[in-house]
C-alpha cells in the first residue's frame, strides 16, 4: 500500500501528445478512477505507472520512492489488463502463484496466499483448470487474484469489467468494492464507463487530450462540473447547451437564452449581478427539465417553456424526449411515462433554475469556479 504521485508527466508518440504535464496525487488506500473518452491516454498512463512505457518528462513517486526509471519487474505494482492476459499454458493455481514464486516466497506462505485469494474470489475447485476451461467472469477473478496475492503498492486495473455482460458486471462491481474495503490497496481503475466510475470510486480523474479536466468525487463531478467538457462527458443522456447572456430582471440576475429567461437561485444570482451583458454557455441536464404534470409545487426559479415533440426515445423505465421550441431550439429531457407523448404533440415543461450550469464560452470553464473549486 502506498500513495501515488504523478508530477508533470509528459508522454509523446511522434507528434501526438498522450500525457501533457499531467499531475495527479492519489492517497494511500484510495480508489481512484481514470475516466475519459477512447484514446485519451488512460491505458498509456497506467502503463507508465506500471513501468511498461517510458516517461518522456516528469516524475512518478509511489510510497515516497522515485519510480520513474525503475523497470517494471522492480516496481511493486500489479496490473489487470483489459484482456486479463492469463498465461494460457498454466493452470489457475500456477497463474496465481507465478508472481509469488518469482519473488521466492516460502512454499507454506504461497499456499496460504493461494487459499486466501481462492476463497475471497470464489475460485475454489478451479485450481487445476486452464484459463480456456473457465468462464469470462472466472477469468476476470483469476486475474484479480493473481494481482492481489502480490500485496502490491498499487493495483492498476485497465477496464477489467468491459468483457463481462451487464448482470455479471454489476456483481463484479460489488465484489471489487468489497475487496477494496477488505484489502485496502490503493487502486487506480481505468474505464470509459461512467456507471462503473460513479459507483466505485472515491475520486474520479477525468482525462481529455492527455490533461486532467477535473479531479473530484463522483458527486462533485456530476453536480459541479468545472468545465464544459466535464459537463458534457459526465451524466447520461448528456447535457443540453444553449447560448445565453446574463441579464437582470427585477431584482435578480438570470440568463436570457433562446428558450426564455432562466432564473437562478438567490445565492448564485447575487454572484453574477456584476456580470450583466456577459455571454455565457448554459448547461441543463435532461433530468432537470420537468414535464409539467410531475411537479407538484412550482418554484420561483422554474422557467416555463412550450415545446413541440420531435422524437421519443424509449430508454426502459424512462423516455428521452427531444422537443423543439418556437424559435427552433432543440431541448432534450426525460419523462417517466410516455403515453400520449407522440411526436408532433405540444407540451409544456419547466426548467429548474437552481440546477443550471453557466460556463464561460471562451475559457470553457464554469463561471462559479473559484481557485479550482466551485
Amino acid at each position, binding site marked *: 500500500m502506498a500513495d501515488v504521485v504523478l508530477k508533470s508527466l509528459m508522454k509523446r508518440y511522434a507528434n501526438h501528445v498522450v500525457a501533457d504535464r499531467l499531475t495527479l496525487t492519489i492517497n494511500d488506500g484510495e480508489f481512484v478512477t481514470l475516466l475519459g473518452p477512447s484514446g485519451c491516454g488512460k491505458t498509456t498512463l497506467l502503463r507508465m505507472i506500471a513501468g511498461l512505457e517510458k516517461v518522456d518528462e516528469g516524475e512518478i513517486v509511489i510510497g515516497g520512492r522515485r519510480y520513474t526509471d525503475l523497470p517494471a519487474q522492480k516496481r511493486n505494482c500489479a496490473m489487470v*489488463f483489459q484482456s486479463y492476459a492469463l*498465461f494460457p499454458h498454466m493452470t489457475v493455481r500456477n497463474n496465481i502463484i507465478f508472481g509469488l514464486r*518469482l519473488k521466492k516466497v516460502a512454499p507454506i506462505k504461497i499456499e496460504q496466499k493461494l487459499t486466501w485469494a481462492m476463497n475471497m474470489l470464489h475460485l475454489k475447485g478451479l485450481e487445476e483448470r486452464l484459463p480456456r476451461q473457465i468462464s469470462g467472469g472466472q477469468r476476470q477473478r483469476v486475474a484479480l487474484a493473481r494481482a492481489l496475492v502480490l500485496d502490491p503498492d498499487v493495483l492498476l486495473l485497465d477496464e477489467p469489467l468491459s468483457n463481462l455482460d451487464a448482470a455479471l458486471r454489476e456483481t463484479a462491481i460489488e465484489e471489487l468494492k468489497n475487496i477494496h474495503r477488505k484489502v485496502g490497496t490503493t487502486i487506480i481503475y481505468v474505464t470509459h464507463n461512467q456507471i462503473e466510475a460513479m459507483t466505485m470510486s472515491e475520486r474520479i480523474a477525468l482525462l481529455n487530450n492527455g490533461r486532467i479536466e477535473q479531479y473530484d468525487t463522483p458527486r462533485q463531478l456530476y453536480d459541479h462540473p468545472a468545465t464544459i467538457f466535464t459537463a458534457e462527458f459526465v451524466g447520461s443522456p448528456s447535457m443540453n447547451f444553449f447560448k445565453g447572456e446574463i441579464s437582470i430582471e427585477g431584482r435578480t440576475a438570470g440568463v436570457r437564452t433562446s428558450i426564455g429567461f432562466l432564473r437562478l437561485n438567490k445565492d448564485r444570482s447575487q454572484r453574477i449581478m456584476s456580470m450583466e451583458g456577459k455571454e455565457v454557455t448554459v448547461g441543463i441536464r435532461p433530468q432537470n427539465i420537468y414535464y409539467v404534470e410531475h411537479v407538484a409545487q412550482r418554484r420561483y426559479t422554474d422557467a416555463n417553456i412550450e415545446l413541440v415533440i420531435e422524437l421519443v426515445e424509449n430508454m426502459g423505465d424512462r423516455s428521452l424526449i427531444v422537443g423543439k421550441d418556437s424559435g427552433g431550439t432543440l431541448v432534450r429531457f426525460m419523462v417517466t411515462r410516455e403515453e400520449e407523448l407522440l411526436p408532433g404533440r405540444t407540451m409544456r415543461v419547466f426548467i429548474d433554475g437552481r440546477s443550471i450550469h453557466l460556463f464561460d464560452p471562451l475559457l470553457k470553464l464554469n463561471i462559479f469556479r473559484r481557485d479550482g473549486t466551485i
Partner: protein
Amino acid sequence: MKFFCSSAQRSPMAVSKRIIWMTGILLAMLIILGPIYLLVKYSISDGPSITTGGKPIPFWPLHPTLSVYGYLFSDRHFYAVLGNSVLIALMTVACSMLLGVPAAYILGRYKIPGRRIVLLGIISVRLFPDIASVIPIVEFFIFVGAHQTYMGVILSHTLLALPYVIFIGMGAFETIPHELEDQASVMGANRFQTFYSVLVPLAVPGLAAAAIYTFLLSWDEFIFAYFLTFGRQEMFTLTLYLNGLKYAEPQNLLAATSVCLSIPVIAFSMLVQRYMIAGISSGSIK
C-alpha cells in the same frame, strides 16, 4: 464404428458428403502409403520377385524374406553409421534450437536496428544451392580444423537448418500476445524468466515443427556430410552408407537400408508431434 452405423438415419445429402470425404481420405492414404508399401515390399523380396525375367513384378513377394535385414544388422559398420546419424541429427536439433530460438525471439519481438539486414543475411544462407556453397564452407572448416570431426558435420547442418528455425520460430513468437509478456514483467519476471516460463512454452507447437524439420534435414543431408567426413568411413552417416550401396548385391539391400533410414525419422516426428497441439494459447486473451 458409430461413424458408420449412424449414417443410416442421415439424409442422403449427409451420406453422399461422407462418401466424398471417405474417398478423399482413402486417396490421400494411398498417396502416402503407396511409396512406403513399395519400399517395404522390395526390402522383403527374394531375388526372383525382383528380377522376373520379363514377367510382371508380383504385387506381393513370392517368398517374403527378412534375410537382408539379417545381413544389415550383422554389419558392424551399419551400427556405427546409424549411431553417427542419430547423434548428428540430435545434436543438430539441439544446436539449432539453442541458437535459433533466442534469435527468433529477439528478431521477432524487438525492432532492433539493422533487423532487416540481419534477416536478409540469414535468408541468404539458403540462396545458394548446397552444391555451390559446400566448397568454400568446407575450405573454411578445414582452415579452422573442423573437418573430419562430428562437430564439423553438426555445425554445417546447423548452418543449413538455422534459417528455417529462425523463421518458423519468429512466426511462433509473433502469435503470442504482447500483453502476456507485459503481465509477466509487472509480476516481477525479468526478460529471461519471461522468455523461458511464458514465451517458450507458448511457442512450443511452432518450435516442435522446426525441430522435426531440422532432424529431417540433418538426417537427409548428403553433400556436407560427404565432404566433411571424406576419407573417414567410421564417421559416415546413413546417406553416405546408402551411397556406398549403389551397385550392391542383393538388390533389396538398398530398400532395406531405406526402411531403416525412415524409421527413426517417423519415431522422432511422432514423439515431437504431440507438442504441435493447436490452440495452446487460447483463453489468454478474450
